[in-house]
């Protein structure tokens, strides 16, 4: 019955408490930094730029006092699939890509054509994947979920004048996170109740997969109950006049410090340079 302990598997990005430079940064800095670097990653098609970004990711990892090997471990089980899709991509790509302006066929076999551009696409895609994976994992490793929610809300506040309800969006996010364990427990309880009453349950390898049919039939009651809960909660909030974010103050006050400005400046310098010079790389 151990496999039924759903709550054990609830990790939405593991927070690793450490004393590091990156841990102490304002969550807004980290979110903006990730955004800028992600933009730089998606516009860089050259090997040089991607190597630079990869190096920068390792730098961030060092500044967070988190072992890069540990960060990359999450990708390990996916490698066969990554290589499979890379092979498919390489077998059909025949347009110019990035610095590779003249397409040259390297290998041909039936309907599959490997070109120099295809090779670049595959290598760059994998490099991009590694960089983005590292940066997003490091973000969740160094920032708690509540910090992230608060940071996102503060970042969205200026858009309030255009009608974007920053507080409500943050509330949606917080509610979502609050309810995930509640529903997981409910799912687990419902499943156990069925088993106790004699429903078939298979053990051993791939237990959860072989019992998927059972678990899937719980989907409708789970959703129906969740929707009823939502209705009740909304009524409760409305009854207590907790309906909008106007005039609300917060316990967790976010303040930019010198370290934040410096980090943001560095990230902005790197990203914006790479974006501006994206077509200038020869290799």
């Amino acid at each position: 019955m151990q496999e039924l302990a759903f709550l054990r598997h609830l990790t939405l990005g593991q927070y690793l408490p450490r004393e590091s430079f990156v841990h102490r940064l304002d969550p807004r800095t980290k979110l903006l930094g990730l955004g800028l670097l992600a933009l730089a990653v998606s516009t860089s098609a050259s090997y040089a730029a991607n190597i630079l970004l990869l190096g920068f990711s390792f730098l961030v990892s060092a500044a967070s006092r988190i072992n890069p090997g540990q960060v990359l471990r999450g990708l390990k089980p996916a490698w066969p699939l990554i290589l499979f899709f890379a092979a498919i991509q390489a077998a059909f790509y025949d347009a110019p890509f990035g610095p590779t302006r003249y397409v040259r066929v390297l290998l041909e076999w039936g309907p599959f054509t490997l070109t120099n551009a295809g090779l670049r696409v595959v290598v760059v895609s994998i490099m991009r994947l590694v960089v983005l994976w590292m940066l997003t994992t490091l973000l969740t490793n160094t920032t708690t979920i509540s910090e992230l929610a608060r940071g996102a809300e503060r970042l969205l506040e200026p858009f309030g004048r255009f009608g974007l309800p920053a507080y409500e969006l943050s509330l949606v996010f917080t509610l979502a996170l609050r309810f995930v364990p509640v529903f997981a427990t409910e799912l687990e309880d419902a499943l156990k109740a069925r088993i106790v009453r004699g429903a078939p349950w298979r053990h051993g390898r791939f237990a959860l997969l072989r019992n998927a049919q059972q678990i899937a039939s719980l989907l409708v009651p789970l959703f129906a109950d969740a929707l009823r809960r939502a209705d009740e909660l909304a009524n409760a909030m409305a009854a207590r006049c907790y309906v909008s974010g106007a005039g609300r103050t917060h316990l967790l006050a976010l303040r930019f410090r010198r370290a934040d400005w410096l980090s943001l400046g560095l990230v902005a310098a790197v990203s914006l340079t790479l974006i501006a010079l994206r077509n200038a790389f020869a290799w």
Partner: protein
Amino acid sequence: MQAQTRIHKVVLAGVLSALTILLGLFPSVGFIPVPTPAGAATTLHIPAILGGVLGGPFVGGLVGLTFGIFSFLRATLPLFKDPLVAIVPRVLIGIVAWAAYTAAARASKSVLFLLAIAAMLVAAGFAAQILQYSVILGAFILVLAVAAGGALLWFVSRGDKRAVAVAVAAILGSFTNTSLVLGLATLLGYLPLQGVILVAATHGIPEAIVAAVIVTAIAVAVGVAGAPQRSRL
């Protein structure tokens, strides 16, 4: 139980986002084994569809955004690590579902009937294409399309109008997910065009059917569709 006030919409979006994340964390509920190339049909788009039907375009779009961001964060394939491929189509799931629901709820039975027949023909057309590659797979999809089409026609003629509207919203929402994700992936060069149409049909059709069945069941369970539950006491 459609969300009327602002606070209802906020809470609905939060709860449905929680369900999206839950389904994503537990593959046993997030994927239902179906005989398709991928082995299982995803159910992660169902909360987004429900958001669109019950809460309107904003709620649906927001839940879709959660789906997209979650998918982006957990992606290990370069294909899905592209925010454009992972996030944009998903936001549209809820919006398309809402649009389809409102349109279908207002359409007359005969219009829905014609649409169901048209959908069946399109699906059969795809199945015919697949027959060129693999007879077994093509035959299977053809049978599935005809059976589902027949069921939909029966449903339209006998079922509750709102339930039909919900089913239509689910089918179109599911297809938005399949077609836009695969379409953007092809456009950005991640996948070859020839294989994509094949995958879209063999995977998209069963997934749409699963979504329609589950979403309609949920809608009936919460009272949005189907005959009102009257106490028999």
